[in-house]
């Protein structure tokens, strides 16, 4: 895989920082944000190729962030993170343009596979 630039967005800071470290160990350039507003600003200043986005966040929720990303940067792939009870939001998210959704706790190999699929699907 070529060097990937991704952005992780989740309000659980310990989750995003640790996952970011693991992805960096695999050669994936990873930044992170802990709320939707911060994520939007980071995307505006330096758009990533992929955003990994938690659906359930306080403040600007994941689906609202997704809508804004797709409106301004339709080329960015978004993979949603959901709890098992919020699969519905994952499906709604895909209708809004998300590439796919994954359940927490994550399987990092599955996440990487999903990111590779997203990059390959780029027109």
């Amino acid at each position: 895989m070529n060097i990937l630039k991704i952005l992780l967005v989740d309000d659980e800071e310990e989750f995003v920082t640790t996952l970011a470290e693991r992805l960096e160990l695999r050669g994936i350039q990873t930044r992170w944000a802990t709320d939707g507003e911060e994520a939007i600003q980071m995307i505006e200043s330096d758009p990533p190729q992929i955003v990994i986005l938690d659906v359930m966040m306080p403040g600007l929720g994941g689906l609202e962030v997704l809508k804004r990303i797709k409106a301004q940067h339709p080329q960015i792939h978004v993979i949603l993170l959901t709890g098992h009870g919020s699969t519905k939001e994952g499906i709604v998210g895909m209708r809004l343009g998300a590439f796919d959704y994954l359940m927490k706790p994550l399987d990092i190999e599955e996440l990487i596979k999903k990111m590779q699929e997203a990059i390959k699907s780029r027109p």
Partner: protein
Amino acid sequence: MIEHNEKEVAFFGKITAGFTHEIKNILAIIKESSGLLEDILAVTEDEAFPHKDKFKKSLNRILNQIQRGDDITTHLNKFAHSPDHSPTRVDLNEMAEQVIFLAHRLARLKNVDLVASPHDASIMVKTHPVALQMALFLSIEIFLDSITSGGKIILSPRKVRNKHIVRIHHEVAMPDVSHIPPAISSSTRWKSLQEAMAYLGGMVETDGTALEILISLPESIDE
């Protein structure tokens, strides 16, 4: 009274579902943290350090327990969301699997295996999911109350002509009379089971052998 109970159940479900999301987040953090330790071990594979094997074993144990916690939380979350839409269409095969998971701990205390024998196709009914799970759980409890130890309880959803049935039967390892439990209908839980089935518009029967409970449901509770 029933309306009041439904509100209480919905409240209970909402709070429980919220906490299962929190537990999932905790499990996700533990999983990534132990995953990071695994990654570091993998990149330093050739370097020896004291107690490396114990370290690896402990990590493995943590990952197994995360998986166990995730499975439990997933089923608890599903259960907590049961009152969200009631009545709603459910698959009796899935309901049997779900209740087996919920009753697994109780059965394990008596060394009893809980097994689903699903129908070869989905059996969809429109019903109240919480009450149905309660009825299936009560059926399992009735058998467990009378079992000293061992044996197998099998839940078999079936569609026979237009009847939607779940057969719950207790399979004893040895067909010894001393293993046969007392009559099901004498159980203190039998009345509760009958009430639950009446609420679901269905019925409950026992064949008199004390080894089988048969519950039947209408295709739709609106009928």
